[in-house]
Protein backbone atom coordinates (compact mmCIF):
# COMPACT_ATOMS: atom_id res chain seq x y z
CA UNK A 1 0.00 0.00 0.00
CA UNK A 2 1.38 3.38 -0.93
CA UNK A 3 -0.10 6.86 -0.83
CA UNK A 4 -1.93 6.37 -4.17
CA UNK A 5 -3.67 3.25 -2.82
CA UNK A 6 -4.67 5.10 0.34
CA UNK A 7 -6.10 7.99 -1.68
CA UNK A 8 -8.10 5.62 -3.92
CA UNK A 9 -9.33 3.57 -0.95
CA UNK A 10 -10.37 6.49 1.24
CA UNK A 11 -11.77 8.60 -1.59
CA UNK A 12 -14.06 5.83 -2.80
CA UNK A 13 -15.21 4.42 0.51
CA UNK A 14 -15.49 7.56 2.60
CA UNK A 15 -16.65 9.51 -0.46
CA UNK A 16 -19.57 7.17 -1.16
CA UNK A 17 -20.60 7.08 2.51
CA UNK A 18 -20.40 10.89 2.78
CA UNK A 19 -22.35 11.29 -0.46
CA UNK A 20 -25.07 8.94 0.80
CA UNK A 21 -25.34 10.74 4.14
CA UNK A 22 -25.35 14.19 2.52
CA UNK A 23 -27.90 13.36 -0.18
CA UNK A 24 -30.31 11.88 2.35
CA UNK A 25 -29.70 14.32 5.22
CA UNK A 26 -33.17 15.79 4.89
CA UNK A 27 -35.18 12.58 4.91
CA UNK A 28 -38.19 13.39 7.09
CA UNK A 29 -40.75 10.86 5.86
CA UNK A 30 -40.98 7.57 7.72
CA UNK A 31 -41.98 5.85 4.49
CA UNK A 32 -38.81 7.05 2.71
CA UNK A 33 -36.65 6.25 5.72
CA UNK A 34 -37.90 2.67 5.98
CA UNK A 35 -38.71 1.79 2.36
CA UNK A 36 -36.52 4.14 0.36
CA UNK A 37 -37.40 6.79 -2.19
CA UNK A 38 -40.80 6.17 -3.80
CA UNK A 39 -39.34 6.92 -7.25
CA UNK A 40 -36.54 4.33 -7.03
CA UNK A 41 -36.17 2.55 -10.37
CA UNK A 42 -35.79 -1.17 -10.97
CA UNK A 43 -32.08 -0.84 -11.76
CA UNK A 44 -31.32 0.65 -8.34
CA UNK A 45 -33.51 -1.98 -6.65
CA UNK A 46 -31.74 -4.74 -8.59
CA UNK A 47 -28.29 -3.44 -7.67
CA UNK A 48 -29.37 -2.99 -4.06
CA UNK A 49 -30.59 -6.61 -3.85
CA UNK A 50 -27.30 -7.76 -5.39
CA UNK A 51 -25.17 -5.59 -3.10
CA UNK A 52 -27.03 -6.83 -0.02
CA UNK A 53 -26.41 -10.46 -0.87
CA UNK A 54 -22.75 -10.15 -1.87
CA UNK A 55 -20.72 -9.33 1.20
CA UNK A 56 -16.95 -8.83 1.28
CA UNK A 57 -16.49 -12.48 2.06
CA UNK A 58 -18.07 -13.25 -1.35
CA UNK A 59 -15.25 -11.49 -3.15
CA UNK A 60 -12.57 -12.84 -0.82
CA UNK A 61 -13.72 -16.43 -0.38
CA UNK A 62 -15.25 -17.40 -3.71
CA UNK A 63 -12.05 -16.96 -5.76
CA UNK A 64 -10.37 -19.00 -3.02
CA UNK A 65 -13.06 -21.65 -3.44
CA UNK A 66 -12.37 -21.74 -7.20
CA UNK A 67 -8.63 -22.00 -6.49
CA UNK A 68 -8.99 -24.82 -3.98
CA UNK A 69 -11.93 -26.91 -5.19
CA UNK A 70 -12.78 -25.65 -8.68
CA UNK A 71 -15.89 -23.96 -9.99
CA UNK A 72 -18.47 -26.61 -8.94
CA UNK A 73 -19.64 -24.22 -6.22
CA UNK A 74 -21.58 -22.36 -8.96
CA UNK A 75 -24.24 -25.09 -8.68
CA UNK A 76 -25.14 -23.73 -5.23
CA UNK A 77 -26.88 -20.85 -7.02
CA UNK A 78 -29.05 -22.99 -9.31
CA UNK A 79 -32.10 -22.65 -7.06
CA UNK A 80 -31.83 -18.87 -6.92
CA UNK A 81 -33.55 -17.88 -10.22
CA UNK A 82 -36.44 -20.23 -9.47
CA UNK A 83 -36.81 -18.84 -5.94
CA UNK A 84 -36.82 -15.29 -7.29
CA UNK A 85 -39.60 -16.15 -9.74
CA UNK A 86 -41.67 -17.49 -6.81
CA UNK A 87 -40.92 -14.37 -4.73
CA UNK A 88 -41.97 -12.15 -7.67
CA UNK A 89 -45.18 -14.07 -8.32
CA UNK A 90 -46.32 -14.76 -4.74
CA UNK A 91 -44.46 -12.89 -1.99
CA UNK A 92 -43.91 -9.44 -3.49
CA UNK A 93 -47.49 -8.76 -4.68
CA UNK A 94 -48.79 -9.61 -1.20
CA UNK A 95 -46.24 -7.34 0.53
CA UNK A 96 -47.10 -4.53 -1.87
CA UNK A 97 -50.85 -4.96 -1.56
CA UNK A 98 -50.73 -4.81 2.24
CA UNK A 99 -48.28 -1.89 2.00
CA UNK A 100 -46.11 -3.31 4.81
CA UNK A 101 -42.80 -1.97 6.09
CA UNK A 102 -41.62 -5.43 7.15
CA UNK A 103 -42.30 -8.98 6.00
CA UNK A 104 -43.45 -9.82 9.53
CA UNK A 105 -46.31 -7.30 9.35
CA UNK A 106 -47.72 -9.63 6.71
CA UNK A 107 -47.71 -12.46 9.28
CA UNK A 108 -49.68 -10.16 11.61
CA UNK A 109 -52.19 -9.41 8.86
CA UNK A 110 -52.53 -13.03 7.82
CA UNK A 111 -52.48 -14.63 11.28
CA UNK A 112 -52.21 -12.61 14.48
CA UNK A 113 -49.85 -10.44 16.53
CA UNK A 114 -48.18 -13.29 18.41
CA UNK A 115 -47.19 -14.98 15.14
CA UNK A 116 -45.87 -11.68 13.81
CA UNK A 117 -43.75 -11.17 16.94
CA UNK A 118 -42.47 -14.73 16.66
CA UNK A 119 -41.40 -14.22 13.01
CA UNK A 120 -39.81 -10.83 13.75
CA UNK A 121 -38.09 -12.28 16.82
CA UNK A 122 -36.57 -15.16 14.86
CA UNK A 123 -35.27 -12.68 12.30
CA UNK A 124 -33.77 -10.32 14.91
CA UNK A 125 -32.13 -13.22 16.73
CA UNK A 126 -30.38 -14.74 13.73
CA UNK A 127 -29.63 -11.57 11.76
CA UNK A 128 -28.63 -9.63 14.87
CA UNK A 129 -26.01 -12.19 15.84
CA UNK A 130 -24.80 -12.54 12.24
CA UNK A 131 -24.42 -8.75 12.02
CA UNK A 132 -21.10 -8.84 13.84
CA UNK A 133 -19.66 -11.40 11.47
CA UNK A 134 -20.23 -9.34 8.31
CA UNK A 135 -17.85 -6.75 9.79
CA UNK A 136 -15.47 -9.18 11.46
CA UNK A 137 -14.90 -11.68 8.63
CA UNK A 138 -13.45 -9.29 6.00
CA UNK A 139 -11.69 -7.17 8.65
CA UNK A 140 -9.72 -10.15 9.99
CA UNK A 141 -8.54 -11.12 6.49
CA UNK A 142 -7.61 -7.63 5.31
CA UNK A 143 -5.90 -6.70 8.56
CA UNK A 144 -3.99 -9.99 8.65
CA UNK A 145 -2.63 -9.59 5.12
CA UNK A 146 -1.84 -5.89 5.40
CA UNK A 147 -0.62 -6.04 8.97
CA UNK A 148 -3.20 -3.52 10.13
CA UNK A 149 -4.51 -3.72 13.71
CA UNK A 150 -7.87 -5.50 13.67
CA UNK A 151 -9.90 -3.47 16.15
CA UNK A 152 -9.51 -0.04 14.46
CA UNK A 153 -10.53 -1.63 11.12
CA UNK A 154 -13.70 -3.03 12.71
CA UNK A 155 -14.54 0.23 14.49
CA UNK A 156 -13.85 2.43 11.43
CA UNK A 157 -15.94 0.20 9.12
CA UNK A 158 -18.74 0.03 11.67
CA UNK A 159 -18.85 3.76 12.36
CA UNK A 160 -18.86 4.63 8.66
CA UNK A 161 -21.84 2.42 7.92
CA UNK A 162 -23.69 3.53 11.06
CA UNK A 163 -23.37 7.22 10.08
CA UNK A 164 -24.97 7.01 6.66
CA UNK A 165 -27.49 4.28 7.51
CA UNK A 166 -28.77 6.17 10.55
CA UNK A 167 -28.82 9.46 8.63
CA UNK A 168 -30.68 8.41 5.50
CA UNK A 169 -32.15 5.03 6.32
CA UNK A 170 -33.24 2.81 3.46
CA UNK A 171 -32.87 5.61 0.90
CA UNK A 172 -29.20 6.10 1.81
CA UNK A 173 -28.67 2.35 1.67
CA UNK A 174 -30.08 2.07 -1.87
CA UNK A 175 -28.24 5.20 -3.03
CA UNK A 176 -24.84 4.05 -1.77
CA UNK A 177 -25.43 0.52 -3.06
CA UNK A 178 -25.47 1.83 -6.63
CA UNK A 179 -22.03 3.43 -6.30
CA UNK A 180 -20.60 0.62 -4.21
CA UNK A 181 -21.61 -1.86 -6.92
CA UNK A 182 -19.95 0.39 -9.51
CA UNK A 183 -16.70 0.28 -7.47
CA UNK A 184 -17.02 -3.50 -7.09
CA UNK A 185 -17.57 -4.00 -10.85
CA UNK A 186 -14.65 -1.71 -11.75
CA UNK A 187 -12.35 -3.36 -9.23
CA UNK A 188 -13.18 -6.93 -10.21
CA UNK A 189 -12.80 -6.05 -13.91
CA UNK A 190 -9.36 -4.59 -13.14
CA UNK A 191 -8.31 -7.71 -11.24
CA UNK A 192 -9.52 -10.03 -14.02
CA UNK A 193 -7.70 -7.94 -16.66
CA UNK A 194 -4.44 -7.97 -14.70
CA UNK A 195 -4.77 -11.71 -14.09
CA UNK A 196 -5.31 -12.45 -17.79
CA UNK A 197 -2.44 -10.17 -18.83
CA UNK A 198 -0.11 -11.85 -16.33
CA UNK A 199 -0.90 -15.41 -17.33
CA UNK A 200 2.29 -17.16 -18.40
CA UNK A 201 3.71 -16.64 -21.89
CA UNK A 202 2.95 -19.51 -24.21
CA UNK A 203 -0.19 -20.40 -22.30
CA UNK A 204 -2.33 -17.24 -22.50
CA UNK A 205 -6.03 -17.23 -21.69
CA UNK A 206 -7.32 -20.20 -23.71
CA UNK A 207 -4.37 -22.38 -22.76
CA UNK A 208 -4.80 -21.44 -19.10
CA UNK A 209 -8.50 -22.34 -19.23
CA UNK A 210 -7.58 -25.68 -20.83
CA UNK A 211 -4.90 -26.25 -18.17
CA UNK A 212 -7.35 -25.40 -15.38
CA UNK A 213 -9.78 -27.90 -16.91
CA UNK A 214 -7.15 -30.61 -17.21
CA UNK A 215 -6.22 -30.01 -13.55
CA UNK A 216 -9.82 -30.63 -12.49
CA UNK A 217 -10.84 -27.05 -11.68
CA UNK A 218 -13.57 -26.61 -14.30
CA UNK A 219 -16.07 -29.27 -13.36
CA UNK A 220 -18.99 -26.82 -13.33
CA UNK A 221 -21.89 -29.26 -13.21
CA UNK A 222 -22.23 -32.65 -11.62
CA UNK A 223 -25.42 -34.67 -12.18
CA UNK A 224 -24.36 -37.36 -9.70
CA UNK A 225 -26.98 -38.61 -7.23
CA UNK A 226 -24.28 -39.55 -4.70
CA UNK A 227 -25.39 -37.82 -1.45
CA UNK A 228 -21.81 -37.63 -0.19
CA UNK A 229 -20.92 -35.16 -2.94
CA UNK A 230 -21.10 -31.66 -1.62
CA UNK A 231 -22.00 -29.70 -4.78
CA UNK A 232 -24.25 -31.29 -7.41
CA UNK A 233 -26.99 -29.99 -9.69
CA UNK A 234 -29.56 -31.55 -7.35
CA UNK A 235 -28.27 -30.08 -4.08
CA UNK A 236 -28.02 -26.75 -5.87
CA UNK A 237 -31.53 -26.94 -7.29
CA UNK A 238 -33.33 -28.17 -4.18
CA UNK A 239 -31.13 -26.85 -1.37
CA UNK A 240 -30.47 -23.63 -3.27
CA UNK A 241 -34.18 -23.10 -3.99
CA UNK A 242 -34.97 -23.60 -0.34
CA UNK A 243 -32.26 -21.30 0.98
CA UNK A 244 -32.93 -18.59 -1.60
CA UNK A 245 -36.64 -18.65 -0.90
CA UNK A 246 -35.94 -18.19 2.83
CA UNK A 247 -33.44 -15.45 2.20
CA UNK A 248 -35.16 -13.40 -0.51
CA UNK A 249 -38.73 -14.02 0.62
CA UNK A 250 -38.58 -13.74 4.42
CA UNK A 251 -35.35 -11.98 5.42
CA UNK A 252 -36.16 -8.31 6.01
CA UNK A 253 -32.69 -7.21 4.85
CA UNK A 254 -33.72 -8.35 1.36
CA UNK A 255 -37.48 -7.67 1.54
CA UNK A 256 -36.75 -4.03 2.44
CA UNK A 257 -34.70 -3.66 -0.77
CA UNK A 258 -37.55 -4.53 -3.14
CA UNK A 259 -40.84 -3.51 -1.48
CA UNK A 260 -40.23 0.19 -2.20
CA UNK A 261 -40.38 1.87 -5.59
CA UNK A 262 -43.31 3.46 -7.41
CA UNK A 263 -44.96 0.20 -8.50
CA UNK A 264 -44.89 -3.56 -8.29
CA UNK A 265 -43.07 -3.57 -11.63
CA UNK A 266 -39.90 -1.98 -10.23
CA UNK A 267 -39.46 -4.59 -7.49
CA UNK A 268 -40.19 -7.44 -9.87
CA UNK A 269 -37.77 -6.27 -12.53
CA UNK A 270 -35.12 -5.65 -9.85
CA UNK A 271 -35.46 -9.27 -8.71
CA UNK A 272 -35.50 -10.62 -12.27
CA UNK A 273 -32.31 -8.62 -12.92
CA UNK A 274 -30.69 -10.71 -10.16
CA UNK A 275 -32.25 -13.95 -11.41
CA UNK A 276 -30.60 -13.38 -14.80
CA UNK A 277 -27.20 -12.14 -13.63
CA UNK A 278 -26.41 -14.04 -10.43
CA UNK A 279 -25.19 -17.37 -11.86
CA UNK A 280 -23.02 -15.75 -14.61
CA UNK A 281 -21.56 -13.38 -12.01
CA UNK A 282 -20.66 -16.19 -9.61
CA UNK A 283 -19.24 -18.18 -12.53
CA UNK A 284 -16.88 -15.31 -13.40
CA UNK A 285 -15.73 -14.91 -9.77
CA UNK A 286 -15.11 -18.66 -9.50
CA UNK A 287 -13.24 -18.62 -12.82
CA UNK A 288 -10.93 -15.98 -11.33
CA UNK A 289 -10.05 -18.56 -8.68
CA UNK A 290 -9.51 -21.35 -11.23
CA UNK A 291 -7.25 -19.10 -13.32
CA UNK A 292 -5.41 -18.03 -10.17
CA UNK A 293 -4.62 -21.69 -9.66
CA UNK A 294 -2.94 -21.84 -13.08
CA UNK A 295 -1.27 -18.47 -12.49
CA UNK A 296 0.24 -19.70 -9.23
CA UNK A 297 1.67 -22.77 -10.91
CA UNK A 298 4.05 -20.32 -12.62
CA UNK A 299 4.49 -17.72 -9.92
CA UNK A 300 6.31 -18.30 -6.67
CA UNK A 301 3.87 -18.25 -3.80
CA UNK A 302 3.86 -19.32 -0.17
CA UNK A 303 2.97 -22.90 0.73
CA UNK A 304 0.34 -21.44 3.06
CA UNK A 305 -1.41 -18.22 1.95
CA UNK A 306 -2.20 -16.93 5.44
CA UNK A 307 1.39 -15.89 5.99
CA UNK A 308 0.76 -14.25 9.35
CA UNK A 309 -0.51 -17.56 10.75
CA UNK A 310 2.34 -19.45 9.07
CA UNK A 311 5.03 -17.18 10.50
CA UNK A 312 3.46 -17.42 13.93
CA UNK A 313 3.87 -21.21 14.07
CA UNK A 314 6.41 -22.21 11.42
CA UNK A 315 9.54 -21.79 13.47
CA UNK A 316 11.53 -25.02 13.22
CA UNK A 317 13.39 -26.87 10.46
CA UNK A 318 10.42 -29.09 9.65
CA UNK A 319 8.58 -26.09 8.23
CA UNK A 320 11.65 -25.01 6.24
CA UNK A 321 11.72 -28.51 4.73
CA UNK A 322 8.05 -28.21 3.75
CA UNK A 323 8.72 -24.85 2.10
CA UNK A 324 11.60 -26.33 0.11
CA UNK A 325 9.48 -29.33 -0.87
CA UNK A 326 6.72 -26.99 -2.03
CA UNK A 327 9.10 -24.96 -4.20
CA UNK A 328 10.35 -28.18 -5.78
CA UNK A 329 6.82 -29.46 -6.37
CA UNK A 330 5.87 -26.17 -8.02
CA UNK A 331 8.88 -26.31 -10.35
CA UNK A 332 7.89 -29.83 -11.39
CA UNK A 333 4.29 -28.81 -11.89
CA UNK A 334 5.38 -25.85 -14.03
CA UNK A 335 7.52 -27.97 -16.35
CA UNK A 336 4.78 -30.63 -16.52
CA UNK A 337 2.28 -27.97 -17.67
CA UNK A 338 4.73 -26.74 -20.32
CA UNK A 339 5.20 -30.31 -21.51
CA UNK A 340 1.43 -30.77 -21.70
CA UNK A 341 1.03 -27.54 -23.70
CA UNK A 342 3.59 -28.79 -26.22
CA UNK A 343 1.99 -32.24 -26.37
CA UNK A 344 -1.41 -30.62 -26.88
CA UNK A 345 -0.09 -28.59 -29.81
CA UNK A 346 1.41 -31.71 -31.41
CA UNK A 347 -2.04 -33.25 -32.11
CA UNK A 348 -0.72 -36.56 -30.81
CA UNK A 349 -3.53 -37.86 -28.56
CA UNK A 350 -1.36 -40.46 -26.86
CA UNK A 351 1.42 -38.01 -26.07
CA UNK A 352 -1.15 -35.50 -24.82
CA UNK A 353 -2.73 -38.10 -22.51
CA UNK A 354 0.67 -39.06 -21.06
CA UNK A 355 1.64 -35.42 -20.55
CA UNK A 356 -1.75 -34.70 -18.98
CA UNK A 357 -1.32 -37.57 -16.51
CA UNK A 358 2.14 -36.27 -15.59
CA UNK A 359 0.75 -32.75 -15.12
CA UNK A 360 -2.06 -33.96 -12.88
CA UNK A 361 0.38 -36.04 -10.82
CA UNK A 362 2.69 -33.05 -10.38
CA UNK A 363 -0.23 -30.85 -9.35
CA UNK A 364 -1.41 -33.50 -6.89
CA UNK A 365 2.04 -33.58 -5.37
CA UNK A 366 2.00 -29.80 -4.83
CA UNK A 367 -1.46 -30.15 -3.29
CA UNK A 368 -0.17 -32.90 -0.98
CA UNK A 369 2.63 -30.62 0.21
CA UNK A 370 0.07 -27.91 1.02
CA UNK A 371 -1.94 -30.48 2.98
CA UNK A 372 1.25 -31.47 4.77
CA UNK A 373 1.83 -27.80 5.66
CA UNK A 374 -1.64 -27.57 7.18
CA UNK A 375 -1.09 -30.77 9.16
CA UNK A 376 2.22 -29.41 10.45
CA UNK A 377 0.51 -26.21 11.55
CA UNK A 378 -2.11 -28.18 13.42
CA UNK A 379 0.56 -30.33 15.02
CA UNK A 380 2.36 -27.19 16.18
CA UNK A 381 -0.85 -25.63 17.51
CA UNK A 382 -4.18 -27.49 17.49
CA UNK A 383 -5.96 -24.09 17.48
CA UNK A 384 -4.12 -22.83 14.39
CA UNK A 385 -6.31 -21.48 11.55
CA UNK A 386 -5.58 -23.89 8.72
CA UNK A 387 -8.07 -22.67 6.09
CA UNK A 388 -6.05 -20.36 3.86
CA UNK A 389 -8.15 -20.28 0.67
CA UNK A 390 -9.72 -16.98 1.78
CA UNK A 391 -6.25 -15.43 1.55
CA UNK A 392 -5.48 -16.47 -2.05
CA UNK A 393 -7.19 -13.59 -3.85
CA UNK A 394 -6.11 -10.89 -1.40
CA UNK A 395 -2.52 -12.16 -1.69
CA UNK A 396 -2.79 -11.82 -5.48
CA UNK A 397 -4.16 -8.30 -5.05
CA UNK A 398 -1.41 -6.99 -2.80
CA UNK A 399 1.48 -8.74 -4.57
CA UNK A 400 0.55 -8.59 -8.26
CA UNK A 401 -1.60 -5.52 -8.87
CA UNK A 402 -0.11 -2.09 -9.63
CA UNK A 403 -0.47 0.69 -7.08
CA UNK A 404 -3.80 2.41 -7.39
CA UNK A 405 -5.41 -0.88 -8.41
CA UNK A 406 -4.49 -2.28 -4.97
CA UNK A 407 -6.40 0.60 -3.37
CA UNK A 408 -9.31 0.02 -5.74
CA UNK A 409 -9.50 -3.70 -4.92
CA UNK A 410 -9.35 -3.00 -1.20
CA UNK A 411 -12.14 -0.49 -1.81
CA UNK A 412 -14.06 -3.38 -3.41
CA UNK A 413 -13.75 -5.41 -0.21
CA UNK A 414 -14.82 -2.53 2.02
CA UNK A 415 -17.62 -1.47 -0.36
CA UNK A 416 -18.98 -5.01 -0.25
CA UNK A 417 -18.71 -5.12 3.56
CA UNK A 418 -20.45 -1.76 3.94
CA UNK A 419 -23.21 -2.56 1.45
CA UNK A 420 -24.32 -5.80 3.10
CA UNK A 421 -23.90 -4.31 6.58
CA UNK A 422 -26.00 -1.25 5.73
CA UNK A 423 -28.92 -3.43 4.56
CA UNK A 424 -28.71 -5.49 7.73
CA UNK A 425 -28.68 -2.49 10.05
CA UNK A 426 -31.54 -0.82 8.22
CA UNK A 427 -33.59 -4.05 8.37
CA UNK A 428 -32.81 -4.63 12.05
CA UNK A 429 -33.72 -1.04 12.95
CA UNK A 430 -36.94 -1.22 10.92
CA UNK A 431 -38.06 -4.55 12.39
CA UNK A 432 -37.26 -3.48 15.95
CA UNK A 433 -39.26 -0.27 15.46
CA UNK A 434 -42.25 -1.50 13.45
CA UNK A 435 -42.77 -4.99 14.82
CA UNK A 436 -41.71 -4.54 18.45
CA UNK A 437 -41.62 -0.92 19.59
CA UNK A 438 -44.90 -0.05 17.89
CA UNK A 439 -46.52 -3.21 19.22
CA UNK A 440 -45.81 -2.12 22.78
CA UNK A 441 -46.45 1.61 22.05
CA UNK A 442 -49.54 1.50 19.82
CA UNK A 443 -50.53 5.10 20.64
CA UNK A 444 -47.18 6.40 19.35
CA UNK A 445 -47.74 4.89 15.91
CA UNK A 446 -49.39 8.09 14.63
CA UNK A 447 -46.44 10.31 15.59
CA UNK A 448 -44.24 10.13 12.46
CA UNK A 449 -41.40 12.24 13.85
CA UNK A 450 -41.19 10.06 16.95
CA UNK A 451 -41.21 6.92 14.82
CA UNK A 452 -38.31 8.33 12.82
CA UNK A 453 -36.33 9.11 15.96
CA UNK A 454 -36.94 5.64 17.33
CA UNK A 455 -36.01 3.96 14.00
CA UNK A 456 -32.76 5.95 13.92
CA UNK A 457 -31.94 4.99 17.51
CA UNK A 458 -32.62 1.31 16.91
CA UNK A 459 -30.49 1.35 13.74
CA UNK A 460 -27.63 2.98 15.65
CA UNK A 461 -28.03 0.54 18.54
CA UNK A 462 -27.86 -2.46 16.23
CA UNK A 463 -24.77 -0.94 14.60
CA UNK A 464 -23.05 -0.50 17.95
CA UNK A 465 -24.07 -4.04 18.92
CA UNK A 466 -22.60 -5.39 15.65
CA UNK A 467 -19.30 -3.56 16.21
CA UNK A 468 -19.10 -4.75 19.81
CA UNK A 469 -19.86 -8.30 18.72
CA UNK A 470 -17.21 -8.14 15.98
CA UNK A 471 -14.65 -6.91 18.49
CA UNK A 472 -15.56 -9.81 20.79
CA UNK A 473 -15.50 -12.26 17.87
CA UNK A 474 -11.71 -12.07 17.79
CA UNK A 475 -11.68 -14.25 20.89
CA UNK A 476 -13.81 -17.03 19.46
CA UNK A 477 -12.26 -19.57 17.10
CA UNK A 478 -15.17 -21.04 15.15
CA UNK A 479 -17.58 -18.16 15.37
CA UNK A 480 -18.29 -17.80 11.66
CA UNK A 481 -19.39 -21.39 11.35
CA UNK A 482 -21.35 -21.07 14.58
CA UNK A 483 -23.29 -18.15 13.12
CA UNK A 484 -24.02 -20.13 9.94
CA UNK A 485 -25.31 -22.98 12.08
CA UNK A 486 -27.45 -20.54 14.05
CA UNK A 487 -28.93 -19.23 10.79
CA UNK A 488 -29.80 -22.72 9.59
CA UNK A 489 -31.45 -23.50 12.91
CA UNK A 490 -33.86 -20.54 12.64
CA UNK A 491 -34.28 -19.99 8.88
CA UNK A 492 -36.30 -23.17 8.25
CA UNK A 493 -39.05 -22.38 10.74
CA UNK A 494 -39.24 -18.79 9.52
CA UNK A 495 -39.77 -19.97 5.94
CA UNK A 496 -42.32 -22.50 7.22
CA UNK A 497 -44.36 -19.64 8.77
CA UNK A 498 -44.47 -17.81 5.44
CA UNK A 499 -45.23 -20.91 3.34
CA UNK A 500 -48.19 -21.70 5.59
CA UNK A 501 -49.30 -18.06 5.33
CA UNK A 502 -49.20 -18.06 1.54
CA UNK A 503 -50.28 -21.56 0.58
CA UNK A 504 -52.34 -23.08 3.43
CA UNK A 505 -55.27 -20.72 3.75
CA UNK A 506 -57.23 -22.90 6.17
CA UNK A 507 -54.50 -22.78 8.84
CA UNK A 508 -55.02 -20.12 11.50
CA UNK A 509 -52.73 -18.11 13.76
CA UNK A 510 -52.72 -20.31 16.86
CA UNK A 511 -52.07 -23.49 14.87
CA UNK A 512 -49.09 -22.01 13.01
CA UNK A 513 -47.77 -20.27 16.13
CA UNK A 514 -47.67 -23.41 18.27
CA UNK A 515 -46.47 -25.45 15.29
CA UNK A 516 -43.56 -23.01 14.82
CA UNK A 517 -42.66 -23.19 18.52
CA UNK A 518 -42.78 -27.00 18.41
CA UNK A 519 -40.79 -27.12 15.14
CA UNK A 520 -38.16 -24.77 16.54
CA UNK A 521 -37.88 -26.87 19.70
CA UNK A 522 -37.56 -30.01 17.57
CA UNK A 523 -34.77 -28.47 15.50
CA UNK A 524 -32.88 -27.35 18.61
CA UNK A 525 -33.25 -30.78 20.26
CA UNK A 526 -32.11 -32.49 17.04
CA UNK A 527 -29.14 -30.16 16.77
CA UNK A 528 -27.94 -31.12 20.24
CA UNK A 529 -28.65 -34.86 19.88
CA UNK A 530 -27.86 -35.74 16.23
CA UNK A 531 -24.79 -35.39 14.07
CA UNK A 532 -26.09 -34.32 10.65
CA UNK A 533 -25.06 -31.54 8.28
CA UNK A 534 -26.49 -28.28 9.60
CA UNK A 535 -27.99 -27.25 6.21
CA UNK A 536 -30.54 -30.02 6.68
CA UNK A 537 -32.06 -28.10 9.59
CA UNK A 538 -33.47 -25.60 7.07
CA UNK A 539 -35.52 -28.36 5.47
CA UNK A 540 -36.41 -30.06 8.76
CA UNK A 541 -37.56 -26.82 10.44
CA UNK A 542 -39.69 -25.77 7.47
CA UNK A 543 -41.27 -29.18 6.94
CA UNK A 544 -42.00 -29.62 10.65
CA UNK A 545 -43.63 -26.19 10.83
CA UNK A 546 -45.86 -26.87 7.81
CA UNK A 547 -46.86 -30.42 8.81
CA UNK A 548 -47.49 -29.53 12.47
CA UNK A 549 -49.56 -26.50 11.42
CA UNK A 550 -51.84 -28.74 9.37
CA UNK A 551 -52.09 -31.29 12.20
CA UNK A 552 -52.82 -28.67 14.87
CA UNK A 553 -55.42 -26.96 12.70
CA UNK A 554 -57.46 -30.17 12.68
CA UNK A 555 -57.45 -30.14 16.51
CA UNK A 556 -57.86 -26.44 17.24
CA UNK A 557 -61.21 -24.66 16.77
CA UNK A 558 -61.61 -22.99 13.38
CA UNK A 559 -61.71 -19.50 14.90
CA UNK A 560 -58.38 -19.93 16.71
CA UNK A 561 -56.04 -17.34 15.27
CA UNK A 562 -58.81 -15.25 13.85
CA UNK A 563 -57.91 -14.87 10.19
CA UNK A 564 -57.56 -18.43 8.95
CA UNK A 565 -60.21 -18.19 6.31
Amino acid sequence: MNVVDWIVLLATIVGIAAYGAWRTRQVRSLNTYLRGNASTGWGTIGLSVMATQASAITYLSIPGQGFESGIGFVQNYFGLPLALIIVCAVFLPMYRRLNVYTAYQFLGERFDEKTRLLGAGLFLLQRGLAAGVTIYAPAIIVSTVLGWPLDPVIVATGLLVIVYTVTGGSEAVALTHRWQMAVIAAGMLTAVTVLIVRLPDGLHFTGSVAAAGALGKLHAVDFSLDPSRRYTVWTGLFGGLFLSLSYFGTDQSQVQRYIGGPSLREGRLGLMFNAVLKIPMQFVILMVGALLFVFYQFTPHPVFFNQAEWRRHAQDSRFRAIEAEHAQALAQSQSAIHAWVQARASDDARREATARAAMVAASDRARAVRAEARAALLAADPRAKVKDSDYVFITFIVTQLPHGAIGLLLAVMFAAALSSKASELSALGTTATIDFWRHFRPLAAADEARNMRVARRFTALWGIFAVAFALFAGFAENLIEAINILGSIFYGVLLGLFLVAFFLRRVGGSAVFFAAIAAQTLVIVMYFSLNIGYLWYNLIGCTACVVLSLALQTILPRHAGGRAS
Partner: protein
Amino acid sequence: MTPAPRPEGPPEAESPNVPGFDTWRAVYLFVFGWFVLIVVLLTVFTAMFA
Protein backbone atom coordinates in the same frame (compact mmCIF):
# COMPACT_ATOMS: atom_id res chain seq x y z
CA MET B 1 -49.40 5.17 11.17
CA THR B 2 -49.65 1.79 9.51
CA PRO B 3 -50.05 2.63 5.83
CA ALA B 4 -53.32 1.70 4.16
CA PRO B 5 -53.29 -1.11 1.61
CA ARG B 6 -52.18 0.06 -1.82
CA PRO B 7 -54.89 0.39 -4.45
CA GLU B 8 -52.94 -1.71 -6.94
CA GLY B 9 -54.78 -3.97 -9.36
CA PRO B 10 -54.33 -7.73 -9.58
CA PRO B 11 -50.58 -8.35 -9.83
CA GLU B 12 -50.81 -10.35 -13.01
CA ALA B 13 -52.95 -7.67 -14.72
CA GLU B 14 -50.16 -5.11 -14.53
CA SER B 15 -48.08 -4.99 -17.69
CA PRO B 16 -44.35 -5.50 -17.23
CA ASN B 17 -43.79 -2.67 -19.70
CA VAL B 18 -40.74 -4.45 -21.08
CA PRO B 19 -40.30 -4.49 -24.87
CA GLY B 20 -41.24 -7.90 -26.23
CA PHE B 21 -43.12 -9.01 -23.11
CA ASP B 22 -46.85 -8.48 -22.72
CA THR B 23 -47.34 -10.37 -19.44
CA TRP B 24 -45.38 -11.25 -16.33
CA ARG B 25 -45.83 -14.90 -17.19
CA ALA B 26 -43.78 -14.25 -20.34
CA VAL B 27 -41.06 -12.55 -18.27
CA TYR B 28 -40.90 -15.51 -15.88
CA LEU B 29 -40.74 -17.95 -18.79
CA PHE B 30 -37.90 -15.95 -20.29
CA VAL B 31 -35.97 -16.00 -17.00
CA PHE B 32 -36.62 -19.72 -16.62
CA GLY B 33 -35.47 -20.30 -20.20
CA TRP B 34 -32.35 -18.24 -19.52
CA PHE B 35 -31.65 -20.38 -16.45
CA VAL B 36 -32.03 -23.59 -18.48
CA LEU B 37 -29.71 -22.16 -21.15
CA ILE B 38 -27.09 -21.31 -18.50
CA VAL B 39 -27.22 -24.85 -17.11
CA VAL B 40 -26.91 -26.30 -20.63
CA LEU B 41 -23.96 -24.00 -21.38
CA LEU B 42 -22.25 -24.95 -18.12
CA THR B 43 -22.79 -28.62 -18.97
CA VAL B 44 -21.19 -28.11 -22.38
CA PHE B 45 -18.38 -26.14 -20.73
CA THR B 46 -17.78 -29.02 -18.30
CA ALA B 47 -17.78 -31.56 -21.14
CA MET B 48 -15.28 -29.46 -23.10
CA PHE B 49 -12.81 -28.59 -20.37
CA ALA B 50 -13.21 -30.86 -17.36
